[in-house]
């Protein structure tokens, strides 16, 4: 909201307080000032000139050659400036606004000495539009005769002003501050200066029958109507125009300008109707019917619902209550008989209508803050008095109609001065507490140890509710920056052991550390196209009603789409990509009793690189390696007795035949899934052709990890005797699993087995069709002795026999 410094001075004496000081103090006590700008700075650059002579340009009929005095007293003929002017209305004797050579006008337009059709010109006589203060471009701007020649126009017209911009958000809770009078009240309280009295005396009202009004909705608690006759839609006087211009309101005509002025001064919106178009039965305030329409002043056809409040005449809607008038009852240039409406409309109703029509106006912004219903008669009297001052011929034929079921919201609250001091942590004496509240318009009486505080109507609608609200009033005027810091006197306990957070950190550290992955943090909203590329579009997702980007309506179920999406963008720049994210996913199909979707806490990993070379060894692919990373991680996290098996349910992104899952309990939660990317998805993700990739993905459930049994951290004795390493290679049928071979190794080695490691997988003609060879390092060790060749031979003999049991054959040599 814009506030004019000069306007404020109508209500409070600001002498000795600079605009800068005022802004600083308002920021520290009331609301955030976002900006301070001089009003129309160009008017301080142009000067008042007197057109001494005007002659026709010798070579151009439409141009005038003027001799202009811009110095005032003691000007000699030679001091006059010659200025060529194209405006039709320039005349000798006029006072005009002159931009001399060197002046810069709005639009970075620098005035230079020039030659116009052979005549040298030393400046420009300006129009209002050239000065950025109006639309009038028909001719030059003629100043009043009283303007002193040579002075800046701003000074001559006494319109030097500063415009203060206050952050609207910081006024959300203050319906009383949406006008200059309200801000002036704050200023008065801050500096302890009196607020100038505001004359709200009614002009003389006639005795004709009051204008008929019928209120048919609780959303209108007060409706005040005042008929006006003989008003003329002429331009407003300069003082009014300048104040409106300062706060960025375009002056229109006296009636519109006054309506705006009253709103911007007192904060109470109001509306004028052309009384001639109103039906004899008068005004009817009612809720709209579904699908009813109204053409508003901006020319838009609005379709309404049963929750919108209408001002009607007869059956016909003439205004959207508290938001905007209707086109049909607009006050035109010839309108002489008006009806002034000043009303109290329900904040929520106005807010909802304004929201569903996406129609926010100065009026709706104020109503939705809950204005006091005591304001309408003040605003109406103010309007009537100002209008009768500006247009003495105006008549008010009848008394005001003032209806409605409103009540003065003013009430009293008990305030304990002790509580003020305790909550603020400052020793503010009772006398200061009382003084501050009184300056803010509260009335105080004593009641035992506490104060009885009368809350004025303007503060009582919403803003001030409880004792703490009054404490804030005292605190902010006392000023928070004058409160000294204090340390809390409380015992500090160590916070409880936080398993989840420790787990998150352990995972992040392991992956970003030894595993060399880059951690990512992704958006929760997933692009529809990406979900489709991942074949996830048919899974249930929490959906966003009002996305910023139309295609981002899905709340992710897992972090995997983000990671695969990141591959798409990074694959061109990097051969080897290792990414992980620890984050949340949401499942709408499983909700709790409060309707919250199930939240999954997940870690996702993706590892991508160009495809392995043909001669790469069996585990030089990203899937095997990622499997290793996750396996090592689970071990590092001390998960007890987990095993890998083929995934019972394969995620959409996973290779349908190769997905593995880790579980502790065969019936229990899946701890982790590791899989190569489903080859069917490569092309969609742009991972084919030149970017053809070997991509592996893993998803780890933090919830399952937290629930899983964990190994105790017991040290194991370092072996006393060295072990022996025996290498075995076994030829097997293709469909015999590695696991079954390892079981045989275990049985054959008995208690001596200290380690098994697969180091080669081989397929070749020499093995025969449908056969493969697995080669293992087997470590044998004993607690009692150093093992010998004999022990090795014994093991091999046992193994050779046992492996035949699963169709295997020990390869020799």
């Amino acid at each position, binding site marked *: 909201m814009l506030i004019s410094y000069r306007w404020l001075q109508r209500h409070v004496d600001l002498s000795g307080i600079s605009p800068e000081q005022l802004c600083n103090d308002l*920021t*520290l006590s009331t609301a*955030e000032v976002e900006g301070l700008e001089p009003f129309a700075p160009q008017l301080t650059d142009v000067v008042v000139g007197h057109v001494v002579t005007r002659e026709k340009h010798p070579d151009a009929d439409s141009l005038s050659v003027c001799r202009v005095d811009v110095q005032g007293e003691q000007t000699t003929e030679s001091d006059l400036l010659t200025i060529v002017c194209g405006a039709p209305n320039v005349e000798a004797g006029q006072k005009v606004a002159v931009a001399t050579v060197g002046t810069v006008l709005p639009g970075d337009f620098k005035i230079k000495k020039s030659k116009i059709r052979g005549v040298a010109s030393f400046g420009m006589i300006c129009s209002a539009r050239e000065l950025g203060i109006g639309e009038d471009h028909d001719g030059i701007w003629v100043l009043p005769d009283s303007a002193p020649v040579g002075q800046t126009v701003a000074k001559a017209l006494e319109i030097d002003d500063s415009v203060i911009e206050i952050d609207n958000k*910081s*006024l*959300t*809770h*203050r319906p009383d501050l949406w006008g200059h009078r309200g801000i002036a009240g704050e200023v008065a309280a801050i500096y302890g200066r009196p607020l100038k009295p505001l004359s709200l005396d009614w002009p003389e009202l006639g005795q004709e029958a009051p204008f008929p009004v019928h209120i048919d909705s609780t959303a209108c608690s007060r409706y005040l109507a005042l008929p006006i006759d003989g008003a003329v839609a002429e331009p407003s006087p300069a003082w009014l125009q300048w104040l409106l211009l300062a706060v960025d309101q375009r002056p229109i005509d006296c009636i519109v300008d006054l309506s705006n002025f009253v709103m911007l001064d007192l904060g109470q919106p109001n509306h004028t109707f052309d009384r001639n178009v109103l039906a004899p039965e008068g005004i009817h305030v009612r809720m709209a019917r579904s699908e009813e329409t109204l053409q508003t002043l901006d020319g838009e056809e609005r379709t309404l619902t049963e929750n919108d409040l209408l001002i009607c005449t007869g059956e016909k809607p003439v205004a959207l209550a508290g938001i905007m008038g209707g086109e049909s009852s607009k006050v035109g240039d010839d309108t002489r008989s008006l009806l002034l409406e000043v009303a109290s409309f329900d*904040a929520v109703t106005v*807010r909802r209508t304004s929201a569903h029509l996406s129609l926010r106006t100065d009026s709706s912004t104020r109503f939705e803050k809950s204005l006091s219903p005591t304001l309408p008669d003040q605003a109406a009297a103010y309007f009537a008095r100002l209008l009768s001052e500006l247009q003495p011929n105006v008549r008010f034929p009848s008394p005001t109609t003032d209806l409605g079921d409103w009540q003065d919201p003013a009430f009293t609250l008990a305030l304990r001065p002790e509580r003020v001091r*305790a*909550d*603020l*942590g*400052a020793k503010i004496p009772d006398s200061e507490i009382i003084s501050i509240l009184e300056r803010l318009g509260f009335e105080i009486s004593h009641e035992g140890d506490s104060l009885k505080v009368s809350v004025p109507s303007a503060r009582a609608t919403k803003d001030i509710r*409880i004792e*703490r*609200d009054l*404490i*804030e009033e005292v*605190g*902010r005027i006392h000023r*928070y*920056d004058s409160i*000294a810091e*204090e*340390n*809390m006197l*409380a015992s*500090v306990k*160590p*916070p*409880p052991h*936080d398993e989840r957070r420790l787990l998150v950190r352990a995972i992040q*550290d392991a992956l*970003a550390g030894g595993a060399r992955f*880059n*951690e*990512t*943090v*992704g*958006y*929760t*909203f997933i692009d529809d196209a990406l979900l489709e590329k991942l074949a996830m579009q048919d899974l249930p997702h*929490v*959906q*966003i*009603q*009002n996305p*910023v980007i139309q295609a981002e309506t899905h*709340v992710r179920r897992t972090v995997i789409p983000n990671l695969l999406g*990141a591959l798409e*963008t*990074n694959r061109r720049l990097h051969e*080897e*990509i290792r*990414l992980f994210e620890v984050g*949340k996913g949401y499942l709408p199909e499983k909700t709790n009793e409060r*309707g919250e979707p199930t*939240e999954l806490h997940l870690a996702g990993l993706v590892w991508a690189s160009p495809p392995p070379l043909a001669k790469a060894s069996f585990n030089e692919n990203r899937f095997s390696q990622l499997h290793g990373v996750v396996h090592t991680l689970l071990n590092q996290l001390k998960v007890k007795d987990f095993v890998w098996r083929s995934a019972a349910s394969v995620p959409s992104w996973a290779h349908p035949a190769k997905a593995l899952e880790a579980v502790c309990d065969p019936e229990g939660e899946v701890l982790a899934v590791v899989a190569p990317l489903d080859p069917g998805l490569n092309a969609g993700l742009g991972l084919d052709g030149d970017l053809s990739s070997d991509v592996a993905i893993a998803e780890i459930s933090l919830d399952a990890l937290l629930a899983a049994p964990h190994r105790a951290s017991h040290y194991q004795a370092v072996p006393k005797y060295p072990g022996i390493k025996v290498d075995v290679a076994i030829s097997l049928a293709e469909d015999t699993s590695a696991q079954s071979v390892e079981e045989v190794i275990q049985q054959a080695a008995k208690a001596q087995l200290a380690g098994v490691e697969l180091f080669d997988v081989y397929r070749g003609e020499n093995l025969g069709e449908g056969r493969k060879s697995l080669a293992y390092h087997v470590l044998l060790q004993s607690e009692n002795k150093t093992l010998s060749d004999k022990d090795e031979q014994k093991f091999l003999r046992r193994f050779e026999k046992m492996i035949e049991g699963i169709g295997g054959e020990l390869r020799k040599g």
Partner: protein
Amino acid sequence: MSDHTALLAQAQEQVQASDSLDALKGIEREYLGKEGRLAELLAQIPTLPQDERPTAGREANRLKQAIVEAVEVKRAELAEAGIAAERSGDGFDPTLPPPRTERGSLHPITQVTRELEDLFQSMGYSVLDGPEVELDYYNFEALNVPADHPARDSHDTFFCEGDGHLLMRTHTSPSQIRAMESFEPPFRVIAPGKCFRHETTDASHDHTFHQMEGLVVDREISVAHLIGAMKTLLRGIFHRDLEIRLRPGFFPFVEPGFELDARCPFCENGCSVCKKTTWIELLPCGLVHPNVLRAGGLDPEEWGGFAFGLGLSRLVMLRHDIDDVRHLLANDVRFLEQF
């Protein structure tokens, strides 16, 4: 006899001339090997007359001894020369760059969050997690923002499809109520996490960002305590004392509510970060509104508290001079690997 002398001289000459351990080994083999020249000599001994044999044997052994000695001396010499050559560093280029050693990285948001968690934990705060898809009740209703409150406008909320009770949390403040529900007072808690605002994205706004909520509930909490705690907090973040000021700020869940400004830590006379004002708006805070305490099941006459919110995304940007907030969640490896 003279044969021996000549042989020795020849051997010594060859040994002396050898310039590597390999060459020396060759010479050694030539003279002392199984089929070497000395072996030849020794093989002839049995063919000599009986009485010459002992002398010939002794002579041969003496010869062998002498050659062995020459070889050993030379070997030591060569070994030493080899070490000396290694140590000379000939051909070493000290400007040769090291090979690239790959490493992983933690996201800068993680790093700053951890730093703050550790700082707060050292002051007795617990860390609380909260859902990103949140109930209207926690995000607004329980925080003293009833339906149709104008303050909802400034929150630019993403709503979830359904009966209107689910939304994307617009701040971490719902954690205040969740904390009151799960901890016995007095307690101190922080809640970092992702938040969402329905805004158009530009260099300084993203619809998804990170915040950290703080809440202290205790008996007799005052504005002065809040100021003290905030100063301590800023000392922890910026590692020095910063002048701060509180000014009114409106947040329905605190009363009184403040904006806390700190003297710009990056300049003395105004810079682009503080927009030439020498103050930077750092965090909103305030005393917990009695209605919020009540919603959390606490009696406002018995318990009080203060709450604050820290913009984690903003802190990350300040910390690393990041000029565009959109880098944070873009997951460009060229960005990530810098941290």
